[in-house]
């Protein structure tokens, strides 16, 4: 290699160099301390650049932009009516009825969770359909499962809010929140990390184990004095369904943003408006590298 051009060095840093060229550049770097320093400086400035713009993702979305995306118009003062996404066709009372029916089922149905805490809901059996839906088309099953998942997420959130200070918290966030989450992760199939939502004024209150789609999931609950935002819950569970991008929905009078990524399903639930949910959801996804 005659020389290491800036183009090639930057492409290498961006992961755009093909394998043979990558090896060639690495060999060059091994013998050229100046080029290594240059690479390190470029990497630092790229990190700074991303940091400089990341905060924008955390800003609440101006309502005029949400209105524009919905095809609504704004008044000169910016006031407008936010048209929430209509309920999905299958987000029917049927799903809700099944959820309500499922509530009384004892936690002992789920041996996996036995001894893991209190207050579990026997929803998983219902979600899996008990085999009765095996003849349904996969797409229909997926849609039904998705709807049940979301109704359950809304239900868990409402229970948490209704309970107020008496809300059941399996692992309270007293002391080290990360340690609390570590404990709850022991009952899950995958390690769950804790998004830091303090920039939004949301304080981690604790975590609960819940059951969604027949598998344990973590419900992370956050509270805040800002009534425009909180309280809020993030449910993270496993999923065998394909990835889907963040999607807004509203069920049982609560707003939610849900997405699936690489075998995990995420639902952010709260009473905050869509703008806050999109902003916080983006932040969560970024922190957890979920999108």
């Amino acid at each position, binding site marked *: 290699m005659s020389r290491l051009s800036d183009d090639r060095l930057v492409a290498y840093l961006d992961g755009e160099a093909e394998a043979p060229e990558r090896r060639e550049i690495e060999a060059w770097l091994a013998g050229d301390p100046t080029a290594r320093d240059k690479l390190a400086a470029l990497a630092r400035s790229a990190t700074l650049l991303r940091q400089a*713009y990341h905060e924008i993702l955390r800003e609440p979305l101006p309502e005029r*932009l949400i209105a524009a995306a919905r095809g609504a118009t704004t008044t000169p003062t910016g006031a407008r009516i936010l048209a929430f996404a209509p309920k999905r066709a299958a987000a029917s009372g049927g799903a809700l009825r099944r959820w309500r029916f499922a509530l009384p089922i004892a936690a002992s149905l789920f041996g996996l969770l036995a001894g893991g805490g209190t207050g579990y809901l026997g929803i998983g059996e219902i979600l899996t359909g008990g085999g009765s839906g095996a003849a349904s088309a996969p797409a229909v099953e997926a849609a039904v499962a998705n709807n049940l998942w979301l109704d359950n997420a809304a239900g868990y959130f409402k229970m948490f809010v209704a309970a107020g200070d008496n809300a059941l918290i399996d692992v309270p966030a007293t002391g080290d929140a990360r340690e609390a989450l570590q404990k709850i992760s022991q009952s899950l199939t995958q390690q769950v990390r804790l998004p830091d939502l303090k*920039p939004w004024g949301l304080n981690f209150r604790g975590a609960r184990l819940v059951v969604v789609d027949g598998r344990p999931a973590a419900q992370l609950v956050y509270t805040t004095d800002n009534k425009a935002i909180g309280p809020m819950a993030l449910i993270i569970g496993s999923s065998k369904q394909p990835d889907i991008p963040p999607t807004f929905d509203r069920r049982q009078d609560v707003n939610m943003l849900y997405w699936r990524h690489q075998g995990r399903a995420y639902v952010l639930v709260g009473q905050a408006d869509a703008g806050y949910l999109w902003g916080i959801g983006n932040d969560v996804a970024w922190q957890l590298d979920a999108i």
Partner: protein
Amino acid sequence: MEPAALAAEEDAIASRFSDQLIAMLPRLRRFARGLAGSIVEADDLVQAASERALARRHQFQEGTRFDSWMFRIVQTIWIDQMRARTVRKEEAELPGDRVGSDEAMRRVEARLALGEVRRAVDRLPPDQRAALLLVTVEGLSYREAAEVVQVPVGTIMSRLARARMALQAQLEAGAGIGRSRNDVEAQ
């Protein structure tokens, strides 16, 4: 299909499209902020792009990347606006200044350093700025960025290298990196 059913299906498609668009808004705002520099201009740009996307919804090809399509719309509108203006605003409103943010007050020093990075980006030529934002901030591949700005991949590669080197030089001259590193070390 019955007209009512057709209308309902069309509504459902439009709703899904809007959902997708709203999900993109934070990233579109970030991209637009990098291009336009100021909050108000960036949001105007995103609003115009959203309205154009809705109007041209049928042109979006399912199975292709929605984010790339939207970035392209933002970029196109921005170029049109740039051409319409003879002079670009030299001193944009301080990037990143938000009104009413407690966090902004608490982290003012760190944000000043990051504001310096944004100002350095703002001083880059427009084509380099777009390449830098698409690849380094938004995470698009060179090929995807080339499709957004409609130039060959090699052009993106060279614009990006020039942008990265210029940014590096500006930050070193302004001690931007040094200050930020000190901030990090101080934490």
